């Protein structure tokens, strides 16, 4: 059946890729190990960044201005205030937090002790508007805004986080840039590792490549096993790095949380979510794909 041919070719490409890897296990181990070390560095920076972001959220630093509304405020009045605020270019985000949402947040924040709030009427907590400022906004803007908002009859109180919040944001941005830079460096390093490994593979199998060219192998067919190999190396390197990072995190985070309890609320530190782990492995496979494709295009011309 002609339409099944791509499937049979793919089966061959995958099995040949696996066989190719098995032919040089030491080279594969070296490549995966080196990639894992590189990816470990990137993972560490990403984990620090992710936790720093989490802390900023936990401390409310991502919401520089919180407007607490008076009891019994009507939804229409809230919308009117939000609409007026939304027209200001300095304001990036506005979120209306109802009393029920505020109670839920409080309960979540208390963790295991959240049950203390059982039976408590959510209306004891005020509704609020959480305002995020656009990047580059003058730090004094929050205070000016707070003064103006305080004059509105629907506003009970306005809380503005201090200048240190700005510094925390700057720090977070620095970590973010560091993560980006590390990502690019690690990406290049991983691609170079895959490039070198695939080049060795191409040299080792050059007779086979020559024969495949001769008998009508397409570029995808000839390159496929090498590209598969590169992707597997990348995915394995990333998986190994994430596994090592998890082991390290599991060993260290209780000490960090105990030793720096003022900084980290209990349970504030977190590891990557399953989706993020998946993205990490896919990122490794993607680097392997790019590195191996570049290598075979250069060394195994069809």
């Amino acid at each position, binding site marked *: 059946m002609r339409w*099944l*041919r*791509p499937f*049979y*070719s*793919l089966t*061959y*490409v995958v099995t040949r890729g696996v066989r190719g890897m098995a032919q040089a296990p030491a080279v594969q181990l070296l490549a995966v190990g080196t990639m894992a070390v590189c990816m470990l560095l990137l993972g560490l920076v990403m984990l620090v960044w992710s936790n720093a972001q989490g802390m900023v959220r936990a401390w409310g630093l991502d919401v520089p201005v919180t407007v607490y509304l008076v009891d019994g405020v009507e939804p229409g009045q809230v919308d009117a205030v939000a609409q007026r605020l939304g027209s200001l270019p300095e304001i990036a985000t506005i979120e209306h937090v109802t009393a029920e949402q505020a109670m839920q947040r409080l309960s979540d924040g208390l963790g295991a002790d959240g049950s203390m709030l059982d039976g408590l009427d959510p209306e004891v907590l005020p509704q609020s508007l959480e305002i995020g400022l656009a990047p580059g906004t003058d730090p004094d803007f929050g205070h000016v805004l707070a003064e103006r908002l305080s004059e509105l009859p629907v506003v009970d109180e306005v809380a503005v986080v201090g200048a240190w919040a700005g510094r925390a944001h700057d720090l977070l941005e620095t970590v973010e840039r560091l993560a980006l830079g590390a990502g690019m460096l690690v990406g290049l390093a991983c691609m170079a590792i895959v490039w070198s490994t695939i080049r060795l593979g191409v040299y080792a199998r050059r*007779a*086979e490549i*020559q*024969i*495949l*060219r*001769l*008998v*009508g*192998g*397409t*570029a*995808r*067919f000839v390159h*496929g096993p090498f590209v598969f190999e590169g992707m597997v190396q990348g995915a394995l390197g990333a998986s190994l790095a994430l596994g090592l990072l998890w082991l390290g995190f599991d060993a260290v985070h209780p000490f960090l949380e105990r030793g720096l309890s003022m900084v980290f609320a209990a349970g504030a530190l977190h590891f990557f979510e399953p989706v993020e782990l998946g993205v990490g492995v896919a990122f490794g496979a993607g680097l392997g794909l790019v590195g191996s494709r570049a290598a075979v295009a250069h060394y195994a011309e*069809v």
Partner: protein
Amino acid sequence: MAIIEFSDVTMTYGRGRKRAAALRGVSLAVDEGAFAVLMGPSGAGKSTLLKLVLAMERPDQGTIRVAGRDIHRLRRASIPYLRRNVGAVFQDFKLLQDATPMENVALALHVLGMPRREVRQRAAWALHQVELDPTMARPARCLSGGEQQRVAIARALAGEPAILLADEPTGNLDPRLSREILDLLAGIRDRGTTVLVATHDPLVLDHVSLTQTIHLEHGRLVTLSAHPEFEDDDDIPAILPAAWPEPAGAVA
């Protein structure tokens, strides 16, 4: 009808002072179903001519048509589909030395995207055609020169190409083995495949019923002789090349 046509083909290797002409204004035609031999001393341009048919080189000038298609105007991605229609056998066999005869032949069939069972059946058939045991477990490096050349012919034959090119197929073999290989090639021609053999071995002229002889010297065509007395086109169903290129998107 000509299945291979060269029109004023010139091909040079190297650049500047190191520039050397391998073919100079060669025009020739090989008929469908022919057993043609390309004669000439070393450096006459025989191998270059075969490489041009396989689109492994590009001519500097002139056109080369295979089954009516100007092959050097093919897209790069279409060239593999041309090669599936043109089997090739070389003096140095070009086999995977650590692979068995079956594995060597199967490689050419995997390229076509065949299921494993069909690959095994077709490879076994091709090995039977060259009188080799398909179950032979010895790797190619443990086979004799004659056996290795048979494996190479089986590999070229497995995909049932319209054209079979052989570059000095008897170059590494003693006279007895050479005759066996030439008999095999003649048998392939009798089944309808056009065979073009490049050689300087005079045994070929004596042993095989040729339909065409092409003589090259210093890259120039010296003689192009037809031997109609050996043509028997009525009995030979000519194999025509499958269409190429394949539809876009095929992995194989």
